[in-house]
């Protein structure tokens, strides 16, 4: 209202310097304004205050809504999928309130799997969460349905929900969306994923290239070699190093072949006579590798400036070479079964120092047969191979070795993928109860996928020896109970 603006302007200046001109007031106020101005008992300031109060009330009483029938908002499309249950929503709210990310991941997986939707009132909170946690964007998008997609049109931070075809998402989506498309494509059709990459490769920056390459482990094969080899001329060190890592995963790649070739020259079987020549035994002979030229080492990607403390240069080179070839190579090259090769390596002073590299190759090439052989022959724990063991063997390794280093084995169990047996639960809880400050709530939260429901019945059996730890452990126990209860409710909510 214009007249009100004049009042405010006059008030800003002050009545002393700029007396207010009442003539600008609306016609309707004139009789009252004149009466105020003619009241000789009022000071100039009070006259202004009364005129201003009059105008304020005129303004207050005369407010009308803005007529704008042409302003419209598009209506959201009808959902085609059902909403999740009230219980599922309650669980979701609890998970968010408690900041339990691993459980939120499970919730979103379940909701996506059962093709259900989040209730509209909670969609903004989920979109906001996903705006900051990019890894959840694809699942949150799916769970927020058409309402989420519609809502995101009004908030640029939520643009990741825009309904796109896979092709659109690959061409114009957010980095997370593009990674998800590539990941899905790689799982469905590895060759097509490479073609997708080739089509956009020239326009991507080094970081994106590296991120895309890191998703190619799944389904890696000889067919990927032409594309990978073309990346060896890349300027970016990151891209080149990721390419080499991938090529080393392909047994037929020239890089692996080169390493194998060198190992063929350096490592042989040798018969040694014993018992005054009456008998003989096999031995693995390692030729000196120290004499390799600088060029040869560079070609193989061996960096001799990176020698670990306690490691000789010779060991460093052998460790690199052994890690870089699939373990089956040794069976072919030496013509012996794996068990025998492990035994020979173990019994050799130099060979035994290369066992960790061998276990590294087992882990890298995900050779489950060799992982089991390593455990059977050596009965030693090689962390790189633990995840390759079947559940019973994995547990056997942990249980047998638990007392040697209960802290380390508790952590190994927590890093594993197998669900804990009752026996393992007892050992882990025992360790956590003895050292509650080392195994706090968040440690167990991260293990929510591998903790069995029955763990709640075992909690009371464990108590710290020291009184001062009792309260802390009780809090952790209560938290574990809460985690299991929420997971139970979550599963029930989507499977009822």
């Amino acid at each position, binding site marked *: 209202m214009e007249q009100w603006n004049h009042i405010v302007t006059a008030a800003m200046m002050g009545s002393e310097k700029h007396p207010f001109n009442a003539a600008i007031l609306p016609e309707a106020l004139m009789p009252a304004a004149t009466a105020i101005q003619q009241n000789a008992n009022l000071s100039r300031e009070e006259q202004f205050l009364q005129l201003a109060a009059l105008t304020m009330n005129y303004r207050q009483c005369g*407010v009308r809504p803005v007529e*704008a029938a042409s302003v419209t*908002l598009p209506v959201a499309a009808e959902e085609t999928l059902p909403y999740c249950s009230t219980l599922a929503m309650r669980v979701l709210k609890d998970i968010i309130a408690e900041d339990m990310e691993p459980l939120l991941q499970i919730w979103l997986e379940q909701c996506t799997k059962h093709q259900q939707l989040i209730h*509209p009132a909670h*969609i903004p909170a989920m979109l906001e969460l996903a705006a900051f946690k990019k890894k959840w964007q694809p699942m949150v998008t799916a769970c927020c349905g058409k309402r989420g997609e519609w*809502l995101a049109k009004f908030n640029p931070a939520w643009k990741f929900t825009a309904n796109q075809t896979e092709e659109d998402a690959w061409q114009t989506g957010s980095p997370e969306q593009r990674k998800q498309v590539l990941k899905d494509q790689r799982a469905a059709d590895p060759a097509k994923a490479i073609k997708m990459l080739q089509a956009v490769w020239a326009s991507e920056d080094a970081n994106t290239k590296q991120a895309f390459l890191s998703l190619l482990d799944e389904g890696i094969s000889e067919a990927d070699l032409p594309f990978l080899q073309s990346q060896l001329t890349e300027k970016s060190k990151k891209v080149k190093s990721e390419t080499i890592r991938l090529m080393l995963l392909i047994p037929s790649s020239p890089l692996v072949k080169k390493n194998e070739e060198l190992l063929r020259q350096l490592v042989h079987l040798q018969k040694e006579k014993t018992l005054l020549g009456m008998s003989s035994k096999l031995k693995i002979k390692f030729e000196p590798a120290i004499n390799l030229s600088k060029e040869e080492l560079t070609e193989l990607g061996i960096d001799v400036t990176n020698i670990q403390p306690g490691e000789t240069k010779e060991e460093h080179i052998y460790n690199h070479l052994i890690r870089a070839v699939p373990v089956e190579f040794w069976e072919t090259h030496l013509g012996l079964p794996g068990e025998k090769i492990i035994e020979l390596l173990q019994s050799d002073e130099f060979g035994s120092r290369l066992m960790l590299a061998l276990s590294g190759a087992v882990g890298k090439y995900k050779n489950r047969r060799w992982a089991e052989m390593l455990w059977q022959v050596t009965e030693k724990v090689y962390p790189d191979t633990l995840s390759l063991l079947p559940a019973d063997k994995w547990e056997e390794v942990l249980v047998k070795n638990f007392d040697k280093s209960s802290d380390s084995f508790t952590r190994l169990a927590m890093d594993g993928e197998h669900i804990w047996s009752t026996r393992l639960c007892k050992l882990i809880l025992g360790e956590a109860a003895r050292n509650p400050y080392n195994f706090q709530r968040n440690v167990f939260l991260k293990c929510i996928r591998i903790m069995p429901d029955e763990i709640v019945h075992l909690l009371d059996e464990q108590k710290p020896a020291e009184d001062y730890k009792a309260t802390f452990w009780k809090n952790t126990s209560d938290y574990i109970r809460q985690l299991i209860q929420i997971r139970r409710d979550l599963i029930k909510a989507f499977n009822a």
Partner: protein
Amino acid sequence: MSLNLTEEQILALAPDAGSAKSGKDLANPAKWVSKGIHEKALWGECQGSGSKPYQTQIDRLNIAFKCSCPSRKFPCKHGLGLLLLHARQPNIFTESTEPDWVTAWLSKREEKQIQQAEKKDKPIDEAAQAKRAQARESKVSDGIEDLRLWISDIIRNGIHSMPEKGDNWFEQTAKRMVDAQAPGLAGLVRNLGNTSFYSDGWQSGFMDQLLQLYLLIEGYKNSNETDGAISDDLRLGIGFIQKQDELKEQSGITDNWLVLSKQVSERDNITTEKFWLYGTGSQRYALILQFIAKGQLAQLAITPGLNINAELVFYPSALPMRAIIKQQHNAGTKPAFKGFNNWQEVAEEETAGFAKLPFRTERPYLIHQLKPVEYKEQWWLQDSDGAMMQLLHPNKYIWKMLSISGGAALDVAVIGKEDRYLAVGLWNQGEYIIL
């Protein structure tokens, strides 16, 4: 009908986030040694860290909590936990015979209500009372003259210098008003000092408040010439207290009241809770204020979305809005409501309101079929005729509102005045949702 709250409503009762979290943890059957329910009460025994479980009980008719735990919070986590557990799993509350401790508490509450009803005022020394009143009137008049000069000085010198004055400048005047036994004026002076001088257009809001202050003191001075109702508003604005006991002697309006919103603010260790209510039968709006000093327990436990059947007595006013709960009979039903049909009706109501009480503040409205729309990079609510009013502080709730509406029209509860309104709740499939 007994108390039946949704989880959201129960959590809104929590005095702080920690209590809400602890309450949720206790909404677990394993934590409760016993639990039971009947029409009047909900009770349970919660195993805490002590040897004896805490006895928690909730009056379902008059919404009150009691717990034997030592917590100073109200309601405590056990009360919240028990309510949440009942909301989640009502079927596990199979016990219906109340234990002795519940009987004793309910009887005591009933006795107290009867005693309050029968309470007679002590004999009053009317001469002394009149003398005290006269002395106060004189002090207030002096304070008002002081304030008139202060306001005149501001107008003479211009409000452009206000941002540089600092809190202390306003506080000194506020203190003089407290000394003059005019706490209402003191509060308004403090509000002037709280103007957000860094935001664009602060001048208009500042002038509004300054003129309201001026209207109050000028109106009070001339109150003999005005009608009785507005002089009550003026006296209340100055800070004369209307005794609640006196109000309770009057008959009120019994209705099913829906709690539309709760607004909380804190100043000088006193928490002020504003509850906005709507009477579904009388179609009247009401404001209940609760003041809680630090360390004291709140007396009133109502939450947005709750329906209560209660008798409310309004403070005398030209435009009655502030009220007290004289008697709460039981938890109310959820009858349909009749709100305003469009913004034009609201504007007319506003005009009528300002005509009666020019210095009034915001009030609630229930309006049918409003759509959130975006116009000139602002959020508005548009009625079925295409007329719109702008939303106040939309960033706090617009996304939830939009998401629920999906672009369709909904019945909305707003609080505001003139051309700016804060949306506080909406109806979705018959349920009132707090925004």
